[in-house]
C-alpha cells in the first residue's frame, strides 16, 4: 500500500485516538449542529504494509526538509515540537486582560512521509482570512516538493481556549479530502507559541490526515536577500514615508520593512560585494545575468527562496529605466537590479523612488506583474490600472470614473503597500508560482483567478470540461453563444445539466479580448440555487448553451472586431476545479450596410440585456426591445435576425407581470400566435447548420410546447415535443439532451 496523497487518512500523523478525544467534528466549523466526525482508526493509519506509514516519533531524523529549513537551522531556530503540545499555564492570578499571541504565521509539521508548511492568515497585519500550505514528500533522505493548497475563504471560530479555522481548499493535486480544519490553542503574548493542528475531511465529513505543525515564524514566507553594489553607487537604506505627501501612515521603511509589512521576511545575507565597472558603464540584460552568476554566492539553478539584488548605475535601455528583473533565462526570477543614475541626489523624491524601485523589482522576483500588464500573463487576468500598489507605475495610475490619475494622484494616495490580490499571491500563492526559480515569469502570477485557470499538474477527477462557440467566426454584433459540456468519464455526482449555465455560478468564464483586457464574465442575471446533483458517468456528456455576449460589469463583451479567447472552469461538488480547453471566437467587421445596421442594433446595451433575458416588456428595456423589433421587421433575412426572433418569441410565449407606480399588478398573458410566428421562424431557419445552435433550438421548441400545454393545448404541445425529439435524434444528441425533451 502506498500513500498517494498527503490528505488521505494514512498520511500525516497517527494522532487519531488522541484527537478523537478533543477534536470536534469538521462540521462544527461549517454547519450547526455539530456532529462527531469519523476518525481514522489508529491501526489503519499505522498499517505496516503502508510504504510511507509514519515511523514512531523517536525514530525521526532531524534534517532540513527544504531550503527554507536549512536557512532556519542556520539561523538557529529549532522548530521541533511535540504534537499538540499543551499551552503552559499562566502562573498566578492575572489582574488585567493580557494580549493574546496572534495565530497568523507559518507553521511546519514533522517530516512524517510528508512535511507540511502551513500558513494561517486570520489575524495580525491585513489578515486575508486564508489558509495555505505546501507539501514536501519525504523519502529516505530525499525531500521533494509535492504540491500546494489554498483555502480562499475561511470560517473562523474563536473561543477562550482555541481558534478554529475551516474552509475548502483548492489543491494542485486531485483529492477528495478538501475541507481543511485548523485548530490552534490560544496563548498569552508571553507564552510559547502553540502548534497548529490541521485535519483534512471530505465534503461529507469523512476524516483524512492530521498534521501537527509547530510555530515557525510570524512571516508567511522567508526569503534570503543578497545585495551587491556597483562602484560609486550608494545603495538605498530607508525612507521616511512622511517626508512627502502620501496615502499611508508615516513610518520609516526599508526594502525589507516593506516586505515585512506584507508578511514576508527578507533576511539580508550580508557580504555586499562592490562590483567594479569602468566609468560610463551601462549594463545589459546579458551582463546582469552574468554578474548574478559570478557574484550571487547562493545562486543555483533550482527553485529556492533566494534573490540577488544589484544596486547599479545605468542600463543600456536608457535613463528612463529605474530597475529591471533581468533573470529570464533558465530558472527565472532569481535576480534583479535597480539603477540609480537619475535618482541619486539624496532628495526625498529620490529616496522615495529608490524605495519604490527596490520593492518593485523584488516584487517581480516573486512573480508579480505590473498592475497594467496582468492581461499579458499566462493565463491572463484583468488589468488593475487603479491599483495603489508597489507594482503599478505612478504615471499609469488610473483610478477610473474620471478621478485624477497620474503620478501626483498616485503618490498622494499611495500607502506604500501591495494590493490585496498581490498580498494573497505573496502569502498564499502556490509554491511554484511564487518561489524564485519556479514557474517562468508571468505564469501563475496572481492568485485570485490565475490558479483557477491554470492547467492542473495532475487531474484524476474523471471530469472534462469542453467549450465551443456556436459560431467560431461571426459578424460584429452577432450574439455570442457558447456550448459548455461536462463529460463524466467515471460515475460520480455532478451538477445537473441546466446548472452548468454560468448564471448558476458553478461554471465561470474568462474572456481575453482583442483590446487587451480580460473579462472575468459576470452574467447580468444570477440564479441562486441549491446544487442539484445527478449521478453521471461512462463518458456521459452534459451540454448546455449560454448566451455570453453581455456582462454585468463591462456590458457588451464582443464589441470590437478581432480574436477573443475564452476559458471556463467548473467547480465540481467535491471542490475540484475543472478547467476547459481554450475556445476562440473571431469577430469580423461588417461587410454590408445591413451588417452594419444589424450590428449597431444588437450591440446596444439594452439589446444585450434584452437578449440575456430572452425578451421583456419592461419599459426600462424599451430601447433594446425596439432594436430587436427593428431587426425582425427590417432585416428578417439577415443571419442575426433569428436571435431577435428568439428573444421576442420567448417573451411572447410567457406571461409578463408589471407592477405600476400605484402598486397595481397587471399581467399580460401569453401571446401564442405571436410566439408561434417568431419562434417558428427562428426554429425553421435553424434546423440545418445555419441559425441558432441546436441546444437553443431544442430549448425554444420545449418552451413553446410547455406554453401551449399551459394554455390547455396538449395536442400542439405534444406535436412540438415530438418534433423536438425527432430533431434531436436526427442530430445524434447525447442522452442527457434527449431525456430533457421527454420530461
Amino acid at each position, binding site marked *: 500500500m502506498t500513500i498517494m496523497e498527503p490528505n488521505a487518512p494514512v498520511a500525516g500523523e497517527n494522532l487519531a485516538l488522541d484527537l478523537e478525544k478533543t477534536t470536534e467534528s469538521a462540521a462544527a466549523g461549517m454547519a450547526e449542529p455539530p456532529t462527531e466526525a469519523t476518525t481514522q482508526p489508529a491501526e489503519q493509519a499505522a498499517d505496516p504494509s503502508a510504504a510511507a506509514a509514519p515511523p514512531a516519533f523517536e525514530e525521526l531524523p532531524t534534517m532540513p526538509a527544504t531550503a527554507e529549513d536549512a536557512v532556519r537551522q542556520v539561523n538557529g531556530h529549532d522548530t521541533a515540537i511535540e504534537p499538540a503540545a499543551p499551552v503552559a499555564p499562566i502562573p498566578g492570578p492575572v489582574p488585567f486582560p493580557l494580549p493574546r499571541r496572534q495565530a497568523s504565521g507559518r507553521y511546519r509539521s514533522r517530516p512524517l512521509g510528508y512535511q507540511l508548511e502551513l500558513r494561517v492568515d486570520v489575524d495580525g497585519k491585513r489578515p486575508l482570512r486564508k489558509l495555505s500550505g505546501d507539501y514536501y514528500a519525504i523519502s529516505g533522505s530525499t525531500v521533494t516538493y509535492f504540491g500546494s493548497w489554498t483555502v480562499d475563504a475561511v470560517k473562523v471560530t474563536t473561543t477562550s481556549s482555541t481558534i478554529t479555522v475551516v474552509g475548502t481548499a483548492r489543491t494542485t493535486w486531485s483529492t477528495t479530502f478538501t475541507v481543511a480544519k485548523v485548530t490552534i490553542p490560544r496563548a498569552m503574548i508571553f507564552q510559547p507559541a502553540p502548534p497548529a493542528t490541521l485535519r483534512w475531511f471530505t465534503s461529507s465529513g469523512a476524516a483524512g490526515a492530521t498534521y501537527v505543525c509547530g510555530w515557525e515564524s510570524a512571516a508567511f514566507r522567508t526569503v534570503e536577500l543578497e545585495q551587491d553594489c556597483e562602484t560609486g553607487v550608494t545603495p538605498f537604506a530607508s525612507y521616511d514615508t512622511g517626508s512627502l505627501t502620501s496615502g499611508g501612515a508615516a513610518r520609516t521603511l526599508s526594502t525589507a520593512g516593506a516586505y515585512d509589512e506584507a508578511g514576508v521576511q527578507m533576511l539580508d545575507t550580508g557580504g555586499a560585494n562592490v562590483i567594479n565597472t569602468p566609468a560610463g558603464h551601462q549594463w545589459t540584460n546579458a551582463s546582469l545575468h552574468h554578474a548574478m552568476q559570478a557574484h550571487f554566492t547562493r545562486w543555483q539553478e533550482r527553485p529556492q527562496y533566494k534573490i540577488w539584488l544589484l544596486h547599479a548605475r545605468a542600463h543600456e535601455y536608457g*535613463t*528612463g529605466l529605474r530597475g529591471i*528583473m533581468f533573470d529570464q533565462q533558465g530558472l527565472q526570477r532569481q535576480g*534583479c537590479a535597480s539603477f540609480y543614475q537619475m535618482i541619486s541626489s539624496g532628495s526625498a523624491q529620490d529616496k522615495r523612488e529608490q524605495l519604490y524601485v527596490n520593492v*518593485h523589482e523584488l516584487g517581480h522576483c516573486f512573480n508579480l506583474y505590473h498592475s497594467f500588464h496582468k492581461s499579458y500573463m499566462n493565463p491572463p487576468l484583468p488589468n488593475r490600472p487603479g491599483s495603489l500598489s508597489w507594482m503599478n507605475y505612478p504615471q499609469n495610475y488610473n483610478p477610473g470614473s474620471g478621478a485624477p490619475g497620474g503620478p501626483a494622484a498616485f503618490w498622494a494616495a499611495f500607502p506604500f503597500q501591495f494590493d490585496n490580490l498581490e498580498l494573497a499571491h505573496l502569502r498564499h500563492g502556490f509554491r511554484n508560482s511564487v518561489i524564485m526559480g519556479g514557474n517562468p*515569469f508571468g505564469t501563475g502570477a496572481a492568485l485570485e483567478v490565475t490558479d483557477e485557470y491554470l492547467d492542473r499538474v495532475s487531474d484524476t477527477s474523471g471530469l472534462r470540461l469542453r467549450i465551443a462557440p456556436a459560431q467560431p467566426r461571426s459578424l460584429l454584433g452577432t450574439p455570442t453563444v457558447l456550448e459548455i459540456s461536462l463529460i463524466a468519464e467515471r460515475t460520480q455526482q455532478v451538477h445537473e445539466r441546466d446548472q452548468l449555465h454560468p448564471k448558476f455560478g458553478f461554471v465561470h468564464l474568462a474572456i*481575453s*479580448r*482583442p483590446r487587451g483586457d480580460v473579462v472575468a464574465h459576470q452574467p447580468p442575471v444570477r440564479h441562486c440555487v441549491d446544487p442539484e446533483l445527478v449521478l453521471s458517468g461512462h463518458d456521459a456528456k452534459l451540454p448546455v448553451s449560454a448566451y455570453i455576449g453581455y456582462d454585468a460589469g463591462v456590458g457588451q463583451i464582443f464589441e470590437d472586431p478581432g480574436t477573443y479567447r475564452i476559458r471556463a472552469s467548473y467547480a465540481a461538488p467535491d471542490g475540484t476545479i475543472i478547467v476547459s480547453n481554450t475556445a476562440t471566437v473571431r469577430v469580423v467587421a461588417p461587410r454590408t450596410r445591413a451588417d452594419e445596421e444589424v450590428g449597431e442594433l444588437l450591440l446596444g446595451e439594452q439589446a444585450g440585456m434584452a437578449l440575456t433575458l430572452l425578451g421583456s416588456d419592461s419599459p426600462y428595456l424599451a430601447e433594446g426591445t425596439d432594436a430587436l423589433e427593428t431587426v425582425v421587421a427590417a432585416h428578417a433575412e439577415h443571419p442575426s435576425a433569428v436571435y431577435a426572433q428568439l428573444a421576442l418569441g420567448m417573451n411572447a410565449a410567457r406571461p409578463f407581470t408589471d407592477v405600476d407606480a400605484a402598486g397595481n399588478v397587471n399581467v399580460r398573458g401569453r401571446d401564442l400566435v405571436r410566439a408561434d410566428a417568431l419562434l417558428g421562424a427562428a426554429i425553421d431557419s435553424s434546423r440545418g447548420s445555419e441559425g441558432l445552435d441546436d441546444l437553443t433550438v431544442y430549448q425554444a421548441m420545449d418552451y413553446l410546447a410547455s406554453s401551449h400545454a399551459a394554455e390547455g393545448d396538449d395536442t400542439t404541445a405534444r406535436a412540438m415535443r415530438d418534433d423536438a425529439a425527432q430533431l434531436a435524434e436526427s442530430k445524434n444528441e447525447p442522452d442527457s439532451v434527449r431525456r430533457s425533451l421527454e420530461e
Partner: protein
Amino acid sequence: MTETSSLAVELAEGFADDEVAVLVDGEQVWHRTGVTTNYSVGLADVVHLPPPPHEATVEVRVRGKADTQRVDATSAAGEIRLRARLDPAGSLALAEATEETRY
C-alpha cells in the same frame, strides 16, 4: 533646420520568441530572432538607428504583420522614439512615443 540625434524603436509588449525586422524605406536595417518581451519593464528590445537624413518610413515586421510610421528627422529635435507593441490578440501597432520611466 534642427538635428535629430537618434532614432529609437522600442519593441514593447507582446513579443514572445518572435522574429522581428525593422526596415527604413523598405530596406532592412535590423533583424533578430527570439525577441521576447521582459514584462518587468515591458520591453523586448530598444533598436537604436542612425536618424535618416530625410523624411522616411520606418516599418516593423513580425508574425507576417507589418506597421509603419513616417518620421522626419530633419524637423525633429533630439530623439525620435517609436514604440511597437503586439496586443494579446496579436495585433501590431507602431506609434510615436516618448521615453517613459520604467521599473
